[in-house]
């Protein structure tokens, strides 16, 4: 991200504010300047403008695994890709866990996971639809597990 917006505003040092270029956003819209505006790096900047992942595999509870570090790193991917890959390498994680651990929004995580999948760096196990559970002993196990909490 460039730092050009800084010079548009009086920094309190008393130096004159450069007269140009004018902000592309009218000053009446405060969205860039306060906390409520959210991250200054727009989400689509992290995803290179993509809103959809290249794969539909990434349900919130789909489990993502990554190979070992010597299986290679993405050469031209972002720090966010690297962070996500490191999380997956540490242990198999669900998409929701990855989003929470990386503090990135789920939509961004999905796009970045799609890249890593395209790179052949991760594997993803889709969750089983409950109606297709192979047998009911899984649910029995869940109930017993809950009782044991």
């Amino acid at each position, binding site marked *: 991200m460039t730092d050009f917006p800084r010079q548009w505003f009086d920094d309190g040092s008393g130096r004159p504010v450069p007269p140009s270029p004018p902000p592309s956003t009218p000053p009446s819209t405060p969205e860039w300047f306060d906390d409520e505006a959210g991250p200054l790096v*727009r989400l689509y900047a992290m995803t290179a403008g993509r809103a959809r992942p290249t794969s539909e595999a990434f349900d919130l509870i789909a*489990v993502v695994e990554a190979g070992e570090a*010597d*299986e290679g790193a993405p050469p031209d991917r972002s720090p966010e890709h690297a962070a996500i890959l490191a999380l997956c390498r540490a242990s198999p994680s669900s998409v929701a866990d990855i*989003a929470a651990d990386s503090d990135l929004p789920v939509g961004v995580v999905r796009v970045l996971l799609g890249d890593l999948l395209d790179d052949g760096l991760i*594997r993803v196990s889709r969750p089983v639809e409950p109606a297709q559970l192979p047998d009911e002993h899984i649910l029995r196990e869940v109930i017993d*597990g*809950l009782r044991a909490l």
Partner: protein
Amino acid sequence: MDSVHSDQRHPDGRHPGERRPERPGPYLSLKILVAGGFGVGKTTFVGSVSEIRPLRTEEQLTEAGRPVDDLEGVERKTTTTVAMDFGRITFRDGLALYLFGTPGQDRFWFLWDELVSGALGAAVLADTRRLEDCFPAVDYFERRGIPFIVAVNCFAGFHTYPADEVRSALDLDPGTPVVMCDAREQGSAKEVLIALVEHARNIYSARQEDGSP
């Protein structure tokens, strides 16, 4: 189970036994939704049975890559980050239950559609002082055939109503369980989950016998 993996080979001639398995283990993750009106105790509930964490999701991740000159419109459609609670209960390696607290406000229905897909079932938390707050959730799960139970969160010091009264006030199907709970208590919250999983199990096995989806 679908599995996508790298075909890269290890150049170092590692012993085959040391390789990671080509196919991931049988990871089974199940999803339960915790729904109900604003302030009914969803976050408390999820937090009392699992380690709760916030999940950042977004209202709209706009497609900025298409026409660059459309950026002004993209700015207007700026994303809103919505925090959603989720918790995980891990029973063993490869078997985990995820709880998702559904966003309370109506404008986030679009998030429900994704959450509900593949969900085992839902617990609808109800507050008898504001029973109508859970109508939308009840309606939503009924329409989609998602197994759900109603858990009345009995806030301390308030009169509790018999389950039958709650059932008729909500016009529930006779088969839909209504249970009382205290969302702050782990033991109570887990009983709700157990009741829900048992209810879901009955429904799914009945559907399998019927041959209906």
